[in-house]
Each structure stands twice: as C-alpha cells, then as structure tokens.
C-alpha cells in the first residue's frame, strides 16, 4: 500500500499505521479481534471519495468505522491489508430545520450530540439505540439501529429521508429527499440502511425528526409466570394501545441485578416495563391505564407508576444497569455478545425465553432473556468462562440451537444489532434464497468487493474461526 497517496489525501496526521493502533482498531464490542493495515481519518466528503478511488484502484478493503460499538464484528477487518476509515472526525451538524422537521448531519455525528443540538428546537431524532451516547449516525444507519422506544418510533430506516453516499469507486451520489414521502425511483438510501458498510460509505444523512413529547409515564409490573408476561405483551399490542416502550426482563436478569448491584427487584419470573408518552396528559393517562388493565387481566401486578423523571429513572434502574450486572454475574466469567439479538412474533416471546434458558442449562452456560418485547426484540448474552475452549464449543452449539428455534417460530436472527460475523452462519442457514440476490446487488455496487468484505452473505460459515477471538483461551 502506498502510504504517501493516503497521506496526500488526508494529511500526515490523519493516517496511522503503528501496529498497536491497528490492534485497537481491530476490536469492537464483539468477540472478534482483527488487525487492519492502516487507519485513515477523513474530514470531508471529497477526502472519502479520493480514499475510495485509491482503494478501489488498488483493490484494498475499506471498513467504515464509527464508535466500533457493533456487537457482531461489524467493524472488525478480515484482511490485514484493510484500511479502516475512522469517520468520527466528520461530526458536523449541517442543518436543523424545525419547521420542515428534518436535520442534516455528517456521518460521524454521535446520536446523543445530535439530540442535544435538536432539543432547543423542541424536536428529536428518535431511533436512538441504548448506545446512543457513543454510536455514530453512520453506524446506526449501517446497522438499522433501533432502541427502547422502537415499539412506537420504529428503527433508523424510517427516519433516513436521504443521504450522500460515496460508492466503492469514489463516486459521490445523492439519494432520497428531504420530504416525508417520495416516489422517485429505487429509494436506494433505504437499501443502504442495514447494509453494514458493504455497499457504500454514508457521508451525510438527512434525518426525519419528531416533536419531543411533553409527558412521559412509566409503569412496572411483576408476573409470577413468564408465559403470562408473554401473553400480556401480545395483548397490549393487539389492543391498539400505543406504548412508547414495552420491555421485558426475565428472572435471571432480575437475579443478576439483585446479586451484583445489591438491588431489591422482586424475584418473580418476569417484569414488564410499559411506558406511554405524548403531548396531552389525558391521552398518556389513557394509554397507561389501558395497558395497566391488560396487565391485570393477565395476572400481572403493577408495582409502580410515575411521570416524574427521577422516579422513572429509579423504576428503570434495574433494567438500565443490566449490562453491568451481567458482566459481573460470575467471577471469572465473561459476558459475551453472542446470540445477543433476535426478534420473534409476540406470541412466541415466552417460549423463546424458556428455550434460551433450557439451551443455556444444557450447555452449562448462563443466559438471560430481556428486550424491547413491544417490537418483538429479544436480547441475551452468553455468560461463560472465556478461557476454556469447551465454553466456546458449547456457545457455538447454543447459538445454533437458539437461532434454529427462532427460525422455527417465525422469528429473525437480528432485531436491531445486525448480522456481520457472529450471527452470519445462523442467518445464512435460514435465509439461503436471499443470498444470491444480495450477492448480485453487492457486485453491482462494489465489483471489486472492497467494502467491508467477508461480512453478511460473504461471512465465513463458522464464526468461531472467522477471526481471532478477543479472549485468551487456554
């Protein structure tokens, strides 16, 4: 690779090739560890375009990278020649148009920074994942991220009105519109959402905004049986109620929070958090009351309800701190991002949670089930001793079996975190007929296969050997 060409594009200070730096950029929030050949930090669309033109001419892989918070190895390079395109310096908010309800930003803008800037205008960009404090808009678009409130507000795709994209050959194209609807061509920007950096580099995005709700009310309910909680979720959605959040936490998650953080959540089989928000208090009251009724009809007990931010933070504290709790659940065990994400039909929530517990028991692992059940999203983690090869073999079997079950019940491999490497084998197994089409699209846009190669349909069939594993195995 000709370093001087890249230095010529972005300047000496914006290129790094020290092996230690490369090693850091070879990691993300997944179990994978790679090693790129170079890290380049562009500051403008033109620089991205020139980098891509150069990489394309040399057939060098390029991986766009935001915060590197992807959980399945999205930003982990598969080839030691790869260029990592660190997008974090392209972080300008270009336009805020409260009257037109959109904003325009560079791809490296951090979600929370954007929402802080929107707040004085009374508007918000709502798909925010839990990682919004560090996740970049580019990373969110690439993964079609969504969050706690997706049950009401949906995922990123619904908010991307348009974008500027740098193609693999360096061409800069404008996609989409600034209007709420459009019927003008293939709507390629919607295809780019969720493409995990394999079809183009998002450099700028026009995003739909919504008004910040004036009232928000949160309740929590206990259930002595997971199945009753599962039925409640389906019933709430089917009733036409409009929760702004509908969240499930199973008994293992509850125990983890109580054990590691000394909290005193009721040790029941399941908790459901339900929230409503809106402009009119009476309307929010109505939503909360109708959901409360459904909870009670299904044998749940509502233990707290509040509009007050401090109170709500307290009620949600256990769920919020679940990551910390899981990561310290058992001494010497690690909390790995495996089978971390899936979506299933509402009626299958409880059965999926039960199945996850059974599979974990079978393989001597610890797994919990929680998630944005209002959107059908189920999250988990595999807790295991990462130093033992047997743990990894067990995890591999568990991942396979869980996703087989998810497929059987009509679910999907990822609800919000994406596929990349560690979910690719399961996803490929169940979505085989989609792969040739994806391959054709990929070839049309990236004939030299330089954009984040080896991911999604091109990912290896065994995630365990796809890259080095970040943990040291004995």
């Amino acid at each position, binding site marked *: 690779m000709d370093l001087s060409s890249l230095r010529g594009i972005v300047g000496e200070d914006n290129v*790094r090739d*020290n*092996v*230690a*730096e490369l*090693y*850091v*950029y070879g*990691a*993300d*929030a*997944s179990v994978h560890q790679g090693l790129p050949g170079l*890290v380049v*930090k562009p500051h403008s669309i033109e620089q991205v375009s020139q980098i891509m033109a150069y990489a394309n001419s040399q057939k060098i892989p390029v991986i766009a990278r935001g*915060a*590197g*918070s992807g959980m399945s190895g999205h930003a982990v390079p598969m080839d030691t020649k790869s260029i990592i395109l*660190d997008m*974090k*310096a392209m972080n300008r908010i270009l336009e805020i148009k409260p009257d037109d309800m959109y904003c325009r930003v560079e791809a490296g803008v951090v979600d*929370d920074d954007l929402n802080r800037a929107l707040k004085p205008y009374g508007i918000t960009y709502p798909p925010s994942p839990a*990682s919004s*404090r*560090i996740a970049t808009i580019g990373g969110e678009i690439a993964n079609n991220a969504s969050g706690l409130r997706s049950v009401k507000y949906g995922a990123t795709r619904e908010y991307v009105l348009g974008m500027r994209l740098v193609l693999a050959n360096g061409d800069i194209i404008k996609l989409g519109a600034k209007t709420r609807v459009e019927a003008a061509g293939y709507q390629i920007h919607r295809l780019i959402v969720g493409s995990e950096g394999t079809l183009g580099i998002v450099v700028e995005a026009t995003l739909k905004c919504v008004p910040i709700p004036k009232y928000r009310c949160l309740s929590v309910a206990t259930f002595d049986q997971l199945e009753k909680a599962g039925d409640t979720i389906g019933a709430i959605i089917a009733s036409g109620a409009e929760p702004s959040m509908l969240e499930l936490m199973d008994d293992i998650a509850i125990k983890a929070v109580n054990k590691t953080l000394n909290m005193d959540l009721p040790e029941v089989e399941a908790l459901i958090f339900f929230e409503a928000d809106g402009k009119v208090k009476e309307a929010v009251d109505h939503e909360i009351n109708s959901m409360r009724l459904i909870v009670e009809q299904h044998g749940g007990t509502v233990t707290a309800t509040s509009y007050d931010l401090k109170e709500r933070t307290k009620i949600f504290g256990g769920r919020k701190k679940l*990551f*910390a709790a899981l*990561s*310290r659940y058992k*001494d*010497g065990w*690690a*909390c790995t*991002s495996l089978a971390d994400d899936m979506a299933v039909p509402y009626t299958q929530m409880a059965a999926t949670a039960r199945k996850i517990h059974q599979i974990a028991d079978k393989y001597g692992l610890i797994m919990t089930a929680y998630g944005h059940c209002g959107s059908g999203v189920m999250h988990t983690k595999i807790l295991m001793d*990462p130093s033992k090869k047997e743990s990894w073999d067990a995890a591999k079997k568990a991942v396979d079996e869980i996703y087989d079950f998810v497929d059987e019940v009509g679910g999907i491999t990822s609800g919000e975190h994406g596929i990349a490497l560690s979910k690719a084998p399961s996803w490929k197994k169940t979505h085989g007929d989609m792969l040739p089409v994806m391959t054709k699209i990929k070839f049309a846009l990236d004939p030299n296969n330089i954009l984040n190669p080896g991911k999604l349909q091109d990912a290896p069939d065994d995630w365990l050997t796809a890259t080095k594993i*970040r*943990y*040291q195995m004995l």
Partner: protein
Amino acid sequence: MEVKYLKDWETEMNTCIRCAYCFEGCPMFKEKGWESDTPRGKVVLAYGLFTGQLEPSDYIAEKILECTFCRDCIQRCSANISVPDILTAARADLVEAGFKYDSHVNLLNKVESSGNIFGKELKAPPHPGKTPVLLGCRFLERSDDAKRYVEILTKLGMEPMTVEDEVCCGMPPGVLGYKDKTNKQKALFRERFPYNEFICMCTTCVFFIRKSYTDLNPTYIIEEIYKRLPEANPRQLGLTVTYHDPCNVGRGMDMVKEPRKILKMIGCDYVEMETFGKEAECCGGGGGVLVTDRELSEKLARKRYRQALDTGAKILVTLCPTCELNLANMAKEDGNKIEVKNLLDLIWEALR
C-alpha cells in the same frame, strides 16, 4: 514481555465488554481523537500486552501514560471497570520491561534524594498540637499558605499538629508504575509520619493513601471543615466564583456538594461551568501527565480554563494544588483575566 502486574487484571480486562461507552467523556479522546486515546483503546492495548499479541513499544507506553486518571470513564462504564487501575498495572509492567522515561526518572530521583517532588529541602511549618496533619509535597512547598491552612483547623476548634519531616506518600512513583520505588517511599513515609489517623491537606495524597495503604485512615481536610464550619460563624465574603471539581474530589471521593455548600457558608455565590460535578472536565494535571507531557496537560488545562472564563466569574476556586497550578498557568498565559484560588484561601479569609 513478562506481565507481572497485568496478570492480576485479566478478569477485569475480560469483564470489559468493549462497548465504548467510556469514549463519551474521556478528555484524552476529546483532545486527540484516535481510539488508542480512549479508555477502551487503552484497555485493549493492555490486553494485547497481557496476551503477548502486542510487543511493548514506546507508542504503547505513550498511550498507557496518556491518562490523567480522571475517572470519568469509570462512571460511564457499562461494567464498572477501573481503567486507571489497569493502566497502573500496565505502567508497572512496562517499567519492568525497561520503558523508563527521563522526565519520570528525574522526578523520582528528586523524591528519593529529598523526600519530595521538588528535590529541595522542605520542612512543614512547625505547629504543635494533637491531631497530625499531612501537608503533601505541593503544600510543603507553599509553606506560608500551608501555615494558614493549618490555622483554619485551629480556628475550627481543633489542635492540629504538623510533622516537620513529612515526606512524599509515594503517589508519584505509584502512579508512574515504579513499584520498587513506591514501596520504598511508602516505607519511608510510614517511618516519618507514623500515624494511622490524620488529616490530609492534599487531594491527591488523601486519595492515593486511601487506595494504596490498607492500614491508614486519613480524613480529607475539607471533610473536617465541612463539619465544623457552620459553628464557627464565618464571615460572608460576598464573592461570585466558579468552582472546578478536582477529579479525585468529585468523582474520586464523591464530594460534589460539600465544597459548594462551604462556598455558600462563607457567603460566596458560584456559577457553574459548562461541565461540573461528576461530569467536570479534567484540568489535565493528573495521572502523571503533567510530567510525561506538559504540553498535552496544558492543552487540557486550557480547555478547562476557557470553561471557567466563559462563566464570567472573576475567581476560579478549586481544591487540588495540581489543578490550581495548571489552571493558574493558563490564567497567567491569558493575562490573568481570572484569579485562581484554593478554596482553603477563601475559608481562611472568612475565618480570620
């Protein structure tokens, strides 16, 4: 590289879920912008050293040393990882592998030859009494100030006793990763300052002592003042100030409200900076960065100074003598548009 010290942190490094939540407030990342400047990046480097996947290098040492131990990452962490502790272990392993730097060695030679970081013969101003008071190197050097600060305790009904021959508590070699020198200095400190319960004037010393001496129980001078000041009927100074939370006080010892309440007790209004309390930005002086890379330390100090200036207050109050120094240098560089003072000075004014 042999990893004697990082070995103890393997579980902790595995506990890190690499979520990047710690990027949000890290002053190094904000200043430098590469992922090796983030807390996660530094933990990944430490892990690379631990597993042998990375060979030690000056580049790695630089990154491991570029941390002010501001503890912002700990409070944002998904898994409560103490990044500064992991980095301290990494520093110790790097030192043993021969990654020693002149600026560090010079400083530690001074500590070894004189008992303090200045390499000068310094004595605590004599003050007979009952309750031992540890000044710490920086206040030892500001002997006139230290005299007044000790007097505050007298005015509050205590009988403070200074120890003329006090020496450095071992924080500088400890933070820079010189384990042998730390142990030697700690032993000398115990010999010269043979008290288990005492009052400590310096923020950094009290924090270090609480963390690294299991048998000592120092009280931070502000804790004592906070308890006793209301009874002493302090004068109302009628000033408007802004207050910089030193990292070890706000995040380290969880003391955000106490200094502010003291300001109120002495009739001072305070205007908050853009970041304050647990979110306060670091002045860049901690973690040995002031010695390792003065220019970098000053860049962080300059940012913090700007935040203070933006409040419109004419006085910037803080507690840690290193913050005071770093911020005062910035004020001086900018034509002294703001006066940097230790809160102890204001308390003294209100009591004398």
